[in-house]
């Protein structure tokens, strides 16, 4: 069936290195994607979003890349910090409204000092 998923369940990086978190989606009709960060004991927190008419979008220390050809999404975090340690989810917003947000299983990022 159609789903949003992730290539890797865990990622460990050294403080100061760049991190890349990947996500695959299967619904070619999806046109809007969001990355969320979830820290322990908290709800998901919006990081960055991208629409399908874009290939790349940059925020503060984060970049999202979208490859529609292979239906792949990635989140790049520059100069990873201990505070970046969390579970990261990609979400696919289907439909005209935001009432059907499909989340992947998540990737746990651990930053080593």
């Amino acid at each position, binding site marked *: 069936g159609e789903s949003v998923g992730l290539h890797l369940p865990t990622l460990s990086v050294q403080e100061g290195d760049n991190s890349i978190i990947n996500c695959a989606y299967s619904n070619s009709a999806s046109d809007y994607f*969001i990355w969320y960060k979830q820290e322990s004991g908290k*709800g998901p927190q919006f990081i960055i979003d991208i629409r399908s008419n874009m290939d790349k979008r940059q925020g503060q220390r984060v970049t999202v890349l979208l490859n529609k050809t292979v239906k792949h999404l990635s989140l790049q975090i520059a100069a990873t910090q201990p505070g970046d340690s969390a579970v990261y989810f990609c*979400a696919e917003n289907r439909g*005209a409204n*935001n009432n*059907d*947000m499909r*989340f992947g299983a*998540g990737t746990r990022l651990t930053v080593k000092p």
Partner: protein
Amino acid sequence: DAGVTQSPTHLIKTRGQQVTLRCSPISGHKSVSWYQQVLGQGPQFIFQYYEKEERGRGNFPDRFSARQFPNYSSELNVNALLLGDSALYLCASSPRTGKGGYGYTFGSGTRLTVV
């Protein structure tokens, strides 16, 4: 400004019981959505309400119901609890329906344990 407020933060119930979870959206937000997050998985969409009307429903049994009040707060009810209902229940509020992750704000959730 207060964020999305959910109560209670933790709850333990016995199989077969009923539970009511509450959510207060950010001031000015008229849309509330509910998600279930089983440990180790991503959140799964349950309901969305906007202006007190149901605008979306996920693939959950009829034991799950919700409503939204005139002040835009919301309740999620689950009847005949099963062990598999143990999860973190998240509420998200947004100013309106329509695409847009920005402004779609999650609360910290209610951790429900069914024993």
